[in-house]
């Protein structure tokens, strides 16, 4: 049970659809911390989102991947961000480096990092087929309880959410980086 041959963490993606999309799109393979949608889908931070829908999740996952790429680069613990945000950390960054940065500038840096990782993966042969979940999640239900039924993930909904994600991330329909987006992010492009 892996994504990009990386074993999945303990959380079942059938119980949180942002997590399902985040596992699939993670550049490092099945990793709950790249987009960390559990924060809003389960832990209700900064606000709760509906965990059983893909609606709105493509852009949420993209923004969270950018944010966490920035957080990781700040060498900050992700769990601190249950309480604070890049709004506060941009001030800490400015204080330490002497370079003024807004929360949005840190997010822009995170986007460059993440897109660069997509480019590295593409160079190594990764494409849409690798941004996928093990087939079982689309055919077998998960463990239900407390009045909540955990159904298999609808394959068509998943593929639509992934297509939305590619669009939001500036990738082509096969999940490949484009020269145009790379240029927009000031990333070097090798043919």
């Amino acid at each position, binding site marked *: 049970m892996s994504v990009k041959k990386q074993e999945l963490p303990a959380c079942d993606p059938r119980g949180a659809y942002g997590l399902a999309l985040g596992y699939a799109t993670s550049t490092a393979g099945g990793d709950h911390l790249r987009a960390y949608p559990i924060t*809003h889908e*389960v832990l209700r931070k*900064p606000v709760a989102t509906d965990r059983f829908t893909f609606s*709105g999740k493509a*852009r949420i996952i993209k*923004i969270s991947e950018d944010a966490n790429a920035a957080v990781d680069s700040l060498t900050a613990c992700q769990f601190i961000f249950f309480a604070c945000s890049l*709004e506060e950390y941009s001030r800490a960054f400015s204080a330490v480096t002497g370079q003024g940065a*807004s929360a*949005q500038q840190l997010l822009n840096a995170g986007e460059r990092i993440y897109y660069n990782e997509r480019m590295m993966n593409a160079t190594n042969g990764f494409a849409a087929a690798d941004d996928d979940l093990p087939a079982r999640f689309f055919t077998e239900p998960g463990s239900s309880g407390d009045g909540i039924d955990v159904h298999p993930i609808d394959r068509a909904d998943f593929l639509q959410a992934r297509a939305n994600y590619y669009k*939001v991330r500036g990738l082509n329909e096969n999940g490949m980086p484009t020269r145009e987006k790379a240029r927009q992010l000031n990333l070097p492009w090798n043919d």
Partner: protein
Amino acid sequence: MERLIRKYADKLVSHGLAAPGEPLLAGLDSEIVWNRPDKRTALLATLFDTLSINSLLFARPAQPYAAIIDYLAARADEAIFPIDCESRTFFHDLPVAREFSAKTIAAALRRRKSVTIPGEGIVTFGAVSPEQAFVTFSSVCFACYVKFHLDYLRDARAGTLTPEQRAVFELAAAMPNPLPETPPAVRRGPFTSDSAVLEAIWEAGRLTVEYHMVDSFFGNVSCRRGDTLFITQTGSSLDELPGRIDGCPMDGSSCAGLTASSELKAHHEIALRSGCTAVLHGHPKFSVILSMDCPKAHCDREGECHIKCPEIRSVCGVPVVPGEVGAGQFGLATTLPPVFASGHTAGIVYGHGLFTTGAVDFSDAFATMLSVERNCREEYFRRVAQAGLDRGEAAR
């Protein structure tokens, strides 16, 4: 996404924060959806290109918020600086822009969660849900209301009130008072089943919102039954509580509290040390305003009142304690419970809100909350009038 956009547009109206048909909300996944057509959608849509957001809200607030916010924004440099807890914890300051342009709005939202354009309205956003945009909008209204009235009292005493300030004050004071003389009937305890406890919490939460004792997703409610403390989840709106209650064992033997209100520890300590069953917490405006009205002219703790005020203060007989959100030395989970251990059934946290308790159910807790806020409202206007008399002016 469309459902959420509509939900929060409706909620702004039903909470009295914006006029019907006024809120403009957008959500973006791969395509932008708006709740209604408007000539400003084209300009606002460009914000999605430059900001990492998934939802956007623009609206002119309803009265008296519009008058208050325009007044404060017109006199602010680059931002309004409220000192209530919602602002301190989540917003720091409230940026003001002078023109309705994509450039100025984006510049403010790159660093803060809201921007106010005097005469136009407030722009807020969400990164994961339109709910964040709603919460921020609501908090800007709350924070400005509190700040305006606190400043007004100070200026009334100093004799520096301006005609514009008086006009806004009169407009706000003329709004209908939502506080009834007699509290509504609520479910009576003792509760003999968990489901009875849940229903009592739902009702208390709904009434707290209905009587304007709290805005957006702030405030929290708990009820103890045996060794379990049932408490509202973190970030839950008190008017939408079914499915949003965590049953937390009092001995801490499970991690059910993981998604509970960040004030779980305070509720737990209050229940434990006072022996009460029900704890209600809201942010009623005049309790919050008066908690920050301190007569002391010079104080070496100035600017730190919300965490380090050393005085034993009270407002309308209700103790006021310092305390920031959560636990720790300066957290309200440490500073507040002693109030209830000493026999009080109400306590105000400086600049934050009011906690009340009920022995067996929410009837006392809710009645106390209403009467404290009603007393604080009366006391506020009495202090304003007194300030006028002290300066030899005619009372209002």
